[in-house]
C-alpha cells in the first residue's frame, strides 16, 4: 500500500531525511522509531503530501503522492504531531467538517461520525468546544478525524502522546485491530509499544534507516538495541 523509494528531504543545507526506502503492505502495523529529530515526522509529512520530497518517490495505493495527490490523500488518514484541531469548533462540528471534506454526506456522514466517536470514546464531549478539552481528549478528537473515512492507510504521528495509561492501552489495541485490514505506520519513542502493537519496526537515525524487522528479529532487550543503533543527541558528535 505504501511504497517509499530513496526519499530525501532537505531544509536548506540540512538533510532531514537522507534516502529512506521501505514498503508497508495491508495487514501490517509498522512502528517507526528513532530519537528526536531523526526525521520521523518529516518522512510522515512526505507520505501524507504535506511536504514535497526533495528527491525520491512516495506512492500510496499505487498513486504517486506528488503527481496525483488527491487520489493518494483520499486513501490516507493522518494524525499529525501535536494533534492540531480547530480550537473554536465543537468536537461534533470538527468531525463533521472533516467528514464533509472527505466527501461524506447525509447518512454516510452521520454513521462515519458515530463510528469514529465510538472508537475514540468521545461521546461525552461531543458538544464541547475543542479548546476546553483536556490533552487526551483533544488527541483522541484528532485521531477520530483520521479514522472518519475508514481509510486504507493510517499515518499516525505519536498517537499515544499525552494519553494516560488506560487510554494508551486502548489506543494500542485500536491500532492493532485496525492493522488487521489496513496499512498502518505510527511513530513513537516508547519501545514497549513496539511489542504491544507492531508487526514490524523500522528504526531510523539522522534521516537513515538503521534497522528493520519484527521485534524479535531486532533483538532483545529492545531499548539496548535502540541505544546501540541510534545516536543520542546528548552525545557530542
Amino acid at each position, binding site marked *: 500500500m505504501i511504497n517509499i523509494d530513496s526519499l530525501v528531504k532537505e531544509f536548506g543545507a540540512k538533510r532531514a531525511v537522507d534516502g529512506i526506502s521501505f514498503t508497508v503492505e495491508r495487514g501490517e502495523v509498522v512502528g517507526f522509531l528513532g530519537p528526536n529529530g531523526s526525521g520521523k515526522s518529516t518522512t510522515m*509529512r512526505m507520505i*501524507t*503530501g*504535506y511536504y*514535497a520530497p526533495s528527491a525520491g518517490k512516495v506512492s500510496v495505493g499505487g498513486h504517486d503522492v506528488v503527481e496525483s495527490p*488527491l487520489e493518494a*490523500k*483520499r486513501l*490516507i488518514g*493522518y494524525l*499529525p*504531531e*501535536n494533534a*492540531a*484541531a*480547530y*480550537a*473554536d*469548533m465543537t468536537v461534533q*462540528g470538527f468531525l463533521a*467538517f*472533516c467528514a*464533509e*471534506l*472527505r*466527501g461524506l454526506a447525509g447518512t454516510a456522514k452521520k454513521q462515519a461520525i458515530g463510528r469514529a466517536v465510538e472508537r475514540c470514546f468521545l461521546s461525552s464531549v461531543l458538544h464541547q468546544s475543542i479548546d476546553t478539552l483536556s490533552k487526551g481528549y483533544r488527541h483522541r478528537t*484528532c485521531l477520530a*478525524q483520521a479514522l472518519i473515512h475508514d481509510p486504507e492507510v493510517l499515518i499516525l504521528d505519536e498517537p499515544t502522546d499525552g494519553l494516560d495509561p488506560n487510554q494508551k492501552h486502548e489506543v494500542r489495541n485500536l491500532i492493532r485491530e485496525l492493522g488487521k485490514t489496513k496499512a498502518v505506520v505510527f511513530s513513537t519513542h516508547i519501545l514497549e509499544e513496539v511489542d504491544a502493537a507492531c508487526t514490524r519496526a523500522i528504526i531510523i537515525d539522522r534521516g537513515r534507516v538503521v534497522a528493520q524487522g519484527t521485534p524479535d528479529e531486532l533483538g532483545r532487550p529492545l531499548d539496548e538495541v535502540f541505544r546501540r543503533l541510534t545516536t543520542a543527541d546528548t552525545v557530542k558528535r
Partner: protein
Amino acid sequence: MKSVWIIAKREMGSYFSSPVAYVFLVIFLLLTGFFTFTAGQFFERGEASLGAFFGWHPWLYLVLVPAAGMRLWAEERRSGTIELLMTMPITPWQAIAGKFLASWAFLAVALALTFPVVVTVNVLGSPDNGMIVTGYLGSFLLAGAYLAITCLTSAMTRNQVVALILSVVACLFLILVGFNPVTDLMTRWASPALIDTVAAFSVVTHFDGFQKGAIDTRDLLYFMSVIGFALFATNVVLRNR
C-alpha cells in the same frame, strides 16, 4: 466547488463563534458613522449623495480589512491545523478560495449593514441611487483587493500582528501612489505620462471611477487582477512552506 463551500462555511462559522465578528461589525459601523457625519460633514455639504460616506473607505479599510483577514492563514500556521487542511483531499486553490470568499462575504455583511445612510440620504433628498449602487460595488471590490493582499501576508507568517502590519503597509502603498498630495509632489520632476502610469496602480484612481457612477471595465479589471495576483502569490507562498 463543494470543497470551497465546506471551507468557506467553516471560516464563516469561526468569525461568528467568537466575539471577533461582533466587535468588528460594531467598530466598522461606528467608524463609518463618524467619518461620514462628523469628519465628512455629511449635513453641511447639503448634497443628496454619499460622497462623504464612500470617500473615506480607502482609509477606513486600510486597517479594518487587514484586521478581518490577518487570521486566515497565520492562525492555521500557528495552531498547526494547516497540516490537517493541506493533507485533506483538496487542492490548495480550493482552500485559498474558500477562505477568501468567506472573509469577503463577511465584509459584504459589514458593508450591507451601513444601509441606514442610504435610507437617510433618500429621506432627506433625492440622490442618484444608481451612483450609490456603483459606489457600493466599488467599495466591495476595494475591500476584496485589500483582503487578497491580507491573505498573502497572512500566509507568509504564523504571527497575526506581522500579517496585519505587512498588509497595512502594502495597502497604504496602493493608496499613496494615486493620492493627490503625493502625485502633486511628483509633478515637480516627473512627466505627466509617468505620473499617470504610477497613479494607474493605485486603488484610489480606480475606486473614484465607481464613485462617479461609472462601471469602467478597466477599473473592474484592475480590482480583479489585484485579487487574482495576490491569491496566486498566496498559493506560491503556501506551496513553499
